């Protein structure tokens, strides 16, 4: 009886609610400048669910947007992970002098905001010979006239590209994931800025755009990757990608921080290639990974090339 009654009514409750929700969603979009690009961005599918043609459309749209915004041609590429490659990183703590050349080389390469300032690498300073357990007791604002200082050692920290990344698990929109070459990437168009991943990361490697990223167009690096160094938006999270725009090529350049290090403390290579320098150092040196006890399996190896 009751079902018959329902059918007799003109509008069903469910249909009405559906329509109302759609109407509200449409009204939420700014109608004045609702050009095709905005609609495309709003209804962009998840990166991994798009096919090649759809991705190409997105990249073209972004290049158009960036050109309009920065009055400069910026290429947004989407190089796929190379087969048989798992990136690994080595950092020689016995050689790092804490000069922060890597920090600023990274900013130049990866288009971070200058003001508010975003750095993907933090160099921590520790006193030699003291108990070295609490990373939060370290100093990151050190500023002596010259480095290295006799009584300190330095440890740069950036995204550790975990094999078991806690940040990926907590993301409610699946806007961050680990690619087959081991790089944990972020889709800035799907990031909703909830910062769960920042809370989950034990290394403090993720950074948040609290304001509109601010960078002079002439300082922008125009060679960008969709999942890497393309210009970001206000309210999204970003982090080190091992310079995905450089390394996912055949042949691919070393990450910017590797090339900037004046003492050659930074090493990079393919963990699956037995002849790579990263494998050499893992096999020949004392290595450790940061906070191994958390089961995150970082692919970032700290090591000591000579005894300290």
């Amino acid at each position: 009886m009751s079902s018959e009654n329902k059918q007799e009514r003109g509008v069903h409750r469910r249909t009405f609610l559906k329509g109302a929700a759609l109407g509200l969603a449409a009204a939420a979009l700014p109608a004045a400048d609702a050009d095709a690009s905005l609609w495309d961005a709003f209804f962009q599918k998840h990166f991994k669910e798009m096919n090649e043609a759809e991705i190409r459309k997105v990249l073209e749209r972004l290049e158009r947007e960036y050109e309009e915004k920065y009055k400069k041609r910026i290429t947004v590429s989407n190089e796929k992970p190379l087969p048989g490659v798992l990136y690994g990183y080595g950092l020689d703590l016995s050689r790092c002098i804490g000069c922060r050349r890597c920090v600023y080389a990274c900013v130049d390469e990866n288009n971070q905001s200058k003001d508010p300032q975003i750095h993907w690498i933090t160099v921590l300073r520790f006193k030699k010979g003291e108990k070295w357990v609490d990373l939060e007791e370290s100093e990151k604002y050190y500023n002596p006239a010259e480095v290295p200082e006799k009584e300190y050692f330095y440890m740069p920290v950036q995204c550790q590209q975990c094999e078991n990344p806690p940040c990926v698990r907590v993301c409610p929109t699946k806007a961050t994931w680990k690619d087959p070459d081991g790089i944990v990437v972020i889709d800035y168009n799907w990031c909703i800025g909830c910062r769960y991943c920042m809370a989950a990361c034990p290394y403090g490697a993720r950074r948040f755009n609290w304001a509109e990223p601010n960078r002079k167009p002439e300082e922008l690096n125009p060679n960008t990757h969709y999942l890497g160094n393309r210009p970001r938006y206000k309210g999204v999270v970003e982090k080190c990608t091992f310079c995905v725009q450089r390394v996912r090529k055949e042949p691919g350049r070393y990450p910017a921080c590797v090339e900037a290090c004046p003492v050659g403390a930074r090493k990079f290579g393919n963990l699956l290639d037995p002849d790579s320098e990263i494998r050499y150092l893992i096999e020949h040196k004392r290595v450790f990974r940061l906070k191994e006890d958390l089961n995150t399996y970082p692919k970032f190896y700290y090591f000591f090339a000579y005894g300290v």
Partner: protein
Amino acid sequence: MNTTKIIVSACAAFCVALFLPCAAISAGSPERDVPKKFLVPPPPFSEGIFPCSQCHEGMPVNRTPRKLEGMHQNIELNHMPGGWCFDCHNANNRNTLRLANGKIVRFEESYNLCGQCHGTILREWKAGLHGKRTGMWNGEKQYRLCVHCHWPHDPRFKPIKPLPPPVKPSDIK
């Protein structure tokens, strides 16, 4: 007696034949394929100083260790106490270097000279561990000579000024 000899020699030959291929294999596939030539930028000579023969050509060679006057006085040897120019520089042709065993080395391959004492470092440099490399992680790599970072007469790496620290949250307006 003769047959015993033959049997023994046959056994020996057999054993040698058995082990030879193994030896050949282990010799043929070194632990790591290290390129013989390392791509390096030109040595960091002081302006206008090379080739050394510009001045040294025809100059008599004085092998006595002494305090230099007139030229090269800025060089204070803070490396290898008791060392002297001709421990490394070739007295007969100043445009080259000379190993302890008498072998002549060009400045472009000076790492062989440093490696005489710093052998473990040279090994790690070849493997890409010691020192800075740029270029392609899966392609051509640019090495640096030892002397690009370590001035050979005073090789310790000199302290440098650090770039500015990050902005403190308390300083953000």
